[in-house]
């Protein structure tokens, strides 16, 4: 049944940019906010095309029709709403069988594309009515023994209408993230060391082009399990982020940085149904120019996350995190994030997903727009979806999402709601 749950909690390839990810170490990502179309049916439902010996292909398509209450993320009183449709296709190929993965070497290749269209008479909306959002992913891993390795790459393109109706350019962002890691577990796996290198290329077009970056991160993690699925850990990650367009970056007060995060804590099961991540540590942005993160709280990384699985068909996640994050509109922001997610399967046919998060962002460092000094945002994002699987390969559902931003700078406040009905097939 966990596979069914995973179906709705996995990163939706067709709507990858719609939700924010709350990291749940080793437990898969929990998508907060709007849930995209189910990208793969459950393993228990015996779907998938057996392409060859040990290779299974899942394919699917879905369509959503709904209404967006605020296309341009405008402040109250200036909203422009529009009907919209989204159509998505996807394919997923792995060496999993219908009864589960086989072999010690696992691979998973996934690709999808979503076409989004605003169906509006408003001329400004029509300028951004069509968008293509491709996604792709590759994962290769081997483990179970004393040595293991993992290789992963994900790509996504985001295109969204700009904040200003009059702007000629949409917000377009290409993101590719690749990582390679090696694991060493001597002595029966009680102690595990993981070395990981991650590269993330983030390319913006047009108005935000100055913010295109290349991020490089080297992580070393040591974990000691004193129980089979509970470990204490020490994790250190050193990054190097530089801007791809030096001239534009300098013009917009963007400087390279060397973010360091050193944490220690606990990961794993507290009870057979409850797992947790407790992490506390030191962090610093080490920005090469201007102001960097500072202060005791500003140099503190803290995370507290609990996952409860009360039944085989339900899961509850709740957490809090304090950290800092590189930002497009300033050097960084201190973030206080609280999030929660609830997933429930009902009678093997209905799938309910409720999630939300609150982020308090305190922007700091050098600002692109100096008028936004000392900006503080309170961002709320929530989503709900309910899908009914008439068969294990066809579903119909409804979904709702809301995003709200309140700030000490009133011009950046907005409330955006989207609601959909959706229909799709997966096999």
């Amino acid at each position, binding site marked *: 049944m966990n596979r069914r749950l995973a179906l709705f909690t996995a990163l939706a390839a067709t709507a990858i940019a719609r939700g924010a990810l709350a990291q749940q170490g080793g437990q898969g990502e929990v998508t907060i906010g709007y849930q995209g179309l189910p990208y793969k049916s459950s393993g228990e439902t015996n779907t998938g095309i057996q392409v060859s010996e040990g290779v299974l292909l899942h394919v699917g398509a879905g369509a959503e029709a709904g209404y967006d209450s605020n296309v341009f*993320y405008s402040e109250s009183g200036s909203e422009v709403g529009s009907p919209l449709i989204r159509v998505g296709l996807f394919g997923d190929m792995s060496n999993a069988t219908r009864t589960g993965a086989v072999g010690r070497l696992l691979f998973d290749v996934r690709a999808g594309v979503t076409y989004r269209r605003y169906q509006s008479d408003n001329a400004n909306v029509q300028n951004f009515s069509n968008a293509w959002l491709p996604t792709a992913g590759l994962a290769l891993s081997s483990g179970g023994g004393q040595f293991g390795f993992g290789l992963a790459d994900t790509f996504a393109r985001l295109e969204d209408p700009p904040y200003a109706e009059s702007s000629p350019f949409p917000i377009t962002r290409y993101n590719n993230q690749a990582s390679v890691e090696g694991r060493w577990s001597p002595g029966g796996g009680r102690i595990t060391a993981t070395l990981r290198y991650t590269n993330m290329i983030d390319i913006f077009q047009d108005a935000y082009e100055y913010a295109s970056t290349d991020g490089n991160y080297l992580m070393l993690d040591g974990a000691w399990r004193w129980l089979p699925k509970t470990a204490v850990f020490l994790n250190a990650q050193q990054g190097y982020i530089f801007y791809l367009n030096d001239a534009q970056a300098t013009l917009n007060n963007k400087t390279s940085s060397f973010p360091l995060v050193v944490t220690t804590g606990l990961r794993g099961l507290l009870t057979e149904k409850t797992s947790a991540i407790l992490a506390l540590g030191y962090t610093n942005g080490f920005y090469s120019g201007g102001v960097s993160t500072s202060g005791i709280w500003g140099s503190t990384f803290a995370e507290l996350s609990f996952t409860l699985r009360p039944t085989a068909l339900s899961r509850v996640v709740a957490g809090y995190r304090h950290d800092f994050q590189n930002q497009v509109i300033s050097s960084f922001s201190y973030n206080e994030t609280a999030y929660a997610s609830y997933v429930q399967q009902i009678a093997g046919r209905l799938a309910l997903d409720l999630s939300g998060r609150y982020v308090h962002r305190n922007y700091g460092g050098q600002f692109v727009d100096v008028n936004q000094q000392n900006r503080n945002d309170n961002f709320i994002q929530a989503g709900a979806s309910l899908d009914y699987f008439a068969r294990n390969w066809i579903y119909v559902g409804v979904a709702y999402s809301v995003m709200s931003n309140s700030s000490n700078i009133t011009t950046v406040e907005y409330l955006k709601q989207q609601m959909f009905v959706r229909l799709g097939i997966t096999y």
Partner: protein
Amino acid sequence: MILLGPAARKGSSIRVKGHGAVVKVKVVLMSMLLAGTVFAQGSAPAPIAPPSAGGAPMPGTADVNVKQRPMLTPEEMVNQAREYAKSMNEVLKRIQTLQDQAKRDKDIIRLNCVTDKVVQVRVNISIAEQSMASLQEANIRNDDGERTHEFTRLTIVNQKVQVLGAEAENCIGEDLSFVGATRVEVEIDPNIPQYDPTQPPAPGIDIERPGEASGML
């Protein structure tokens, strides 16, 4: 015809691992059946034996006296002694076969047991050979007392060898006491997730829409 002794065991030397009890039950049932058949034949005519030293038993009482004199002639004694020797050697050969089999099976428990029987059988055969030689000398000397003594000795030794042979057949090995390789069965609570929650978090993509930098963007 009922075969008793080594010949019977040899002819029915079926060793069924793990089913010894069943075989035993079958043997008992077969014995009871055959015994019934034998009894159904009526009592055999009493052998004509020379009068014992104690005289004939009183009617209705059991004869518990030991026959002091065999009913066999000297030639028959020698022939019977040779039969005993042959039978004892067959028992020894059979036990040695069991010993080799235990070695091949690397069944140390059974091997120790069978080897102990082999040693005892060899000692008894050695005694029997001496008695055989003494019996033949007694025949030459026509010493009736010595002849009877050696023949009785041979009979007893033969019986001991037959018993040892039976014990060797019944040596218990690992096939009964060995319960197999150690097997560990682990029952995992189905509530415990299959994934490893101790792994470090996977690198995640945070590709949200960027914040609004200015009113013109």
